């Protein structure tokens, strides 16, 4: 996904990657990323936890309004 984000940004399309696997996504260096401490299979939050899902989504979408590249934003969501 990090590679895809880079390709889209090179075409002028703003992207944000929401990653549970911060270590690996940092290696690829995407232009904008939100990194959580959630487990694999839980990108935005736990099943039924609407507030958590919306918090992560809000954090990700807000990055799209900033010019890239940005350093990854780490969220304390687990």
């Amino acid at each position, binding site marked *: *996904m*990090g*590679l*895809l*984000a*880079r*390709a*889209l*940004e*090179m*075409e*002028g*399309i*703003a*992207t*944000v*990657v*929401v*990653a*549970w*696997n911060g270590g*690996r*996504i940092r*290696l*690829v*260096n*995407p*232009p904008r990323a939100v990194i959580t401490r959630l487990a*694999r*299979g*839980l*990108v*935005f*939050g*736990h*099943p*039924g936890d*609407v507030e958590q*899902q*919306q918090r992560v*989504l809000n954090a*990700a*979408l*807000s990055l*799209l*309004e*900033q*010019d*890239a*590249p*940005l350093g990854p934003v780490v969220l304390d969501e687990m």
Partner: protein
Amino acid sequence: MDILENKTAWQDHFRQNWLAELKQTGTTNWKIYQHPRNEHAPGAPGIKLSESRLMLITSAGAYLRDEQQPFDEPNLYGDYTLRTFPATTPFSALAYAHGHYDPTMVQQDAQVGIPLRHLEEFVTTRQLGELAPRVVSFMGYQPDSAKTVDDFIPHVVALAKEQAVHAALLAPM
């Protein structure tokens, strides 16, 4: 700026090590797999979300159960194809073929990885301009990153352009 810096060297290492062992033994050895790395990042300008069209991209292996072929879940070499489905698709119409994560959670609540109903609320409240008509879906198991760059990514970029999107939300499962 490159999508994958030093792609040729990465591909040589991949072919001579991980891929060669897979061909020889039929098993995947992640100890000799070199994860792709980039030193520099490209960057597009920020957008005004409330006036923008956003495309959702998921690697959950989601597909339309009654209309599309599942992804090639057991293929150790990976699956570099994609599916698209309408952003208005009810979650009950989706199935998942991936094999490299536990689908229990996304089956229980698709919004954990495919937050279409949340995004619709963002549109309703005018925080987001609109959703792209189609979601891009693929199976995130693509070990050959050079093949991803050469054979897969151009199709997604073309879809983004066709749908005239300003932004993309990428949700790796």
